[in-house]
């Protein structure tokens, strides 16, 4: 199981690297789709069917939005010359990455191996959840019953985002 997930995660990393370095923006967006759809397979392997369904829908919508934006433009990645400022940025990035890598190295001692034990918190959600929520799908039980206010907040965020998108796309700029 861990091998399969590692292989797919490797593909995701390759797709992400290609997406960052592609010259054509359309190929970059489609390479981003590789990452998203590989994540769907990972969710299926990790026994999370609800997540896989949601992710496949969301990824498709995201891809459509991104392709619409990119097709509306010149699609060219603006490559300037690799000057001193670009070197400074790249150096900063590598320094930050190494710092984070060191933190992960220290934190990895506390991580339990994959698939070893459940979090203590989860037992309260698993035991007797069917009787108290009436839902045989435990994820639905958590989302709509134990964490109902969380879901309400999520819906609020979604509505706010839709209103924001409508507002941004409808206003007219000063120069048209």
């Amino acid at each position, binding site marked *: *199981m*861990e091998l399969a*997930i*590692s292989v797919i995660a*490797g593909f*995701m*990393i390759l797709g*992400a690297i290609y*997406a960052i370095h592609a010259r054509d*923006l359309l190929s*970059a*967006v489609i390479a*981003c789709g590789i*990452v*998203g759809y590989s*994540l769907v397979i*990972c969710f299926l392997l*990790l026994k*999370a*069917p*609800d*997540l896989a369904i*949601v*992710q496949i829908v*969301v990824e498709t*919508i*995201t891809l459509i939005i991104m392709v619409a*934006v990119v097709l*509306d*433009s010149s699609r060219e990645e*603006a490559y*300037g010359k690799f000057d001193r400022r670009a070197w400074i940025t*790249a150096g900063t*990035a*590598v320094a*930050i*990455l190494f710092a984070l*890598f060191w933190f992960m190295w220290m934190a990895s001692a506390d991580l339990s191996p*994959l*698939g070893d034990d*459940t*979090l203590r918190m*989860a037992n309260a*959600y*698993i035991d007797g*959840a069917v009787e108290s929520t009436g839902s*045989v*799908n*435990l*994820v639905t039980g*958590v*989302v709509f019953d134990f964490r109902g206010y*969380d879901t309400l907040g999520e819906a609020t965020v979604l509505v*706010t*985002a839709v209103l*924001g*998108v409508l507002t*941004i*796309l409808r206003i007219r*700029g000063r120069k048209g």
Partner: protein
Amino acid sequence: MTAYWLCFILFLTGLYGVITRRNLVKIAISLSVMEFSCFLFLALTGYREGGVAPIVDVAEPVQTYVDPLPQAMVLTAIVIGLATTAMLMAVIIRIYRKYGTFDIREIKNLRG
């Protein structure tokens, strides 16, 4: 443990893209790559060896289930990720229509 490390490397890839790229669309893509790595990490922490998907079969209830709590949280996070991405792309397309470029350095140099 390999899966956790690869997941972390995926996060670093996205972070590198956010810091070094100058194209707004590439920055948005890198942000969603970082998002995906976080989802994968949370789903990995919830996995349990030999567990089944957290859907209770009433006829045969004694089984090992995968942890439903991280899954519920990732479900919320995925939808919010869609909302932020849509917002970001709307802002980006407005910027492109005003300035005619995705390059953040050029946009900074122009007077707006």
